[in-house]
């Protein structure tokens, strides 16, 4: 069994990587300066020219890119290639109703597939494996990302997509699935279903799983490994950068290797923007150095983590990042869906609540995330009969479904019961203990 998908690259010396990264960074900056007007203006504003970027040592001189930029350029304003050169579009839920849209050329898809293939091989997959992909297929990058990766490394893909757990369990038994790809909470939900149906581990053939798209803990890893009888690997990604496979666990399970020949990582102080040294926690910032359609430069992910350049026992030389341990903004990840409190507020406003006071409670029951939104009743949404209140709750819930694609429980509470805070309101109580 091969240990690496691309040994030459994954074990390149730091010196080789330095030169390759510097060359690709400089090339990408020229491409972006020429083709992404928003970023050119940002460079011009500080008098920076593409020629000023000689190596990755100059990375810190470059301006940041923000999620807001993608929103401002909705849908294709940030793309650096002609639309005819795009071969795929993906999107994730944005902060204010509009989605964050990303696009890929053939090369972009190929390099993403390569990154996902490296992650699969690092998790012990080879050509003989049946890769069961239970991430959602669609605009979300999870499903197709692992699908392309598994195909690239020559394994057999089972594109199960998400949902219908009873059928998934039948497939796990009958189709010979050996590698499972899904969110960690869904892996535990599958374990629950197996137990409920009295299916013992000798009836399934899983040996490993790649789990990501939502925060999870080492305790969850241990639980998944024990209950499914597999090794559980972390995989990290975000659609703005490409998708799953930006970083991946190796057999040491001691931090995720960044695919550094494609993506540069920096950890910064989210307040000052200053680059932080190895080991220090801060906001993760990525720079794409090989992409064509959407090569984002110094993209602020808002994920909080730290990195280390220490040599890994697996032989890979790529820098490793710790599991993200939080967010520098108020984004929540619920069942793999990015949720911003502002989206919930806009739904409440659209349902006729003029000055919504609300609190979002997120919990995990039977290994599935549940969201409850407590809304204070006011003259705007109070109805004298029960049916009216139930209709209001159903209307809000339908709004949440169409905006977020998530069901939520709407609970009305008395005015004044949700704590008021000075300055930034606290809108979220997350009881999941994910960090």
């Amino acid at each position, binding site marked *: 069994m091969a240990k690496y998908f691309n040994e030459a690259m994954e074990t390149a010396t730091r010196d080789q990587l330095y030169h390759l990264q510097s060359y690709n960074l400089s090339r990408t900056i020229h491409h972006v300066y020429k083709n992404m007007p928003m970023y050119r203006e940002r460079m011009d504003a500080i008098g920076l020219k593409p020629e000023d970027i000689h190596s990755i040592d100059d990375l810190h001189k470059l301006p940041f890119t923000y999620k807001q930029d993608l929103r401002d350029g909705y849908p294709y304003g940030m793309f650096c290639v002609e639309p005819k050169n795009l071969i795929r579009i993906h999107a994730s839920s944005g902060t204010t109703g509009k989605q964050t849209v990303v696009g890929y050329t053939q090369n972009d898809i190929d390099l993403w597939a390569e990154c996902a293939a490296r992650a699969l091989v690092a998790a012990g997959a080879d050509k003989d494996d049946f890769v069961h992909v239970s991430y959602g297929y669609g605009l979300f990058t999870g499903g197709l990302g692992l699908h392309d990766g598994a195909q690239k490394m020559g394994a057999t893909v089972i594109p199960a997509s998400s949902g219908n757990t009873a059928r998934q369990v039948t497939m796990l038994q009958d189709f010979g699935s050996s590698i499972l790809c899904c969110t960690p909470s869904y892996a535990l939900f599958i374990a629950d279903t197996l137990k409920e149906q009295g299916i013992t581990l000798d009836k399934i053939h899983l040996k490993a799983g790649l789990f990501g798209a939502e925060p999870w803990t080492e305790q969850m890893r241990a639980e998944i490994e024990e209950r499914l009888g597999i090794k559980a690997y972390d995989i990290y990604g975000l659609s703005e950068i490409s998708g799953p496979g930006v970083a991946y666990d190796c057999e040491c399970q001691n931090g995720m290797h960044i695919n550094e020949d494609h993506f540069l990582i920096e950890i910064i102080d989210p307040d000052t923007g200053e680059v932080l040294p190895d080991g220090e926690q801060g906001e993760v910032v990525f720079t794409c150095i090989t992409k064509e359609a959407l090569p984002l430069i110094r993209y602020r992910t808002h994920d909080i983590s730290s990195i280390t350049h220490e040599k890994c026992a697996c032989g890979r030389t790529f820098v490793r990042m710790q599991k993200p341990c939080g967010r520098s903004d108020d984004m929540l990840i619920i069942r793999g869906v990015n949720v911003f409190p502002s989206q919930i507020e806009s739904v409440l406003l659209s349902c006729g609540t003029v000055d919504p006071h609300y609190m979002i409670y997120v919990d995990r029951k039977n290994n599935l995330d549940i969201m409850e939104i407590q809304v204070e009743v*006011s003259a705007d949404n*109070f*109805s*004298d*009969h*029960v049916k009216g*209140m139930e209709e209001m709750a159903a209307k809000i819930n339908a709004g949440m479904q169409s905006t977020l694609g998530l069901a939520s429980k709407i*609970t009305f*509470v008395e005015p*004044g019961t949700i704590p008021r805070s000075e300055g930034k309101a606290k809108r979220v109580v997350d009881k999941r203990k994910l960090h």
Partner: protein
Amino acid sequence: MIIKQISIFVENKPGRLAEITKIIAKNNINIRALSVADTTHFGILRIIVDDPEEVERVLKAEGLTVSITSVITACIHNRPGGLAEVLELLASNDITIEYMYAFIAKSENEAYVVMRIEAEGAAVELLKEHGFTGME
């Protein structure tokens, strides 16, 4: 026949109804009739009082969510079949009731039924036609 009813939103948690009735008592408000509509998470306390506008103002100042709704009252006989009589009358004229409750009047022989009816005008006309009186 048409009177004003006060509706108060009550969260479904232990002791909350007691707290709210205490607020009502503290403000020297006499409840003439009441009903509670309850669901898993909340209830709606509906009360009939002497001066609804004043009571609305007072309870709002106490931070409660309050609304005023007009309801129809009808005086019925306090004997078997007394309620059925008025409900049959409304039903046979296709008038539907959203919710209702009843209480005994000062005279033991009579009771009042309080009804929330969308087709308020038609209901009042019908009831009057058939000799029903309401609470004033």
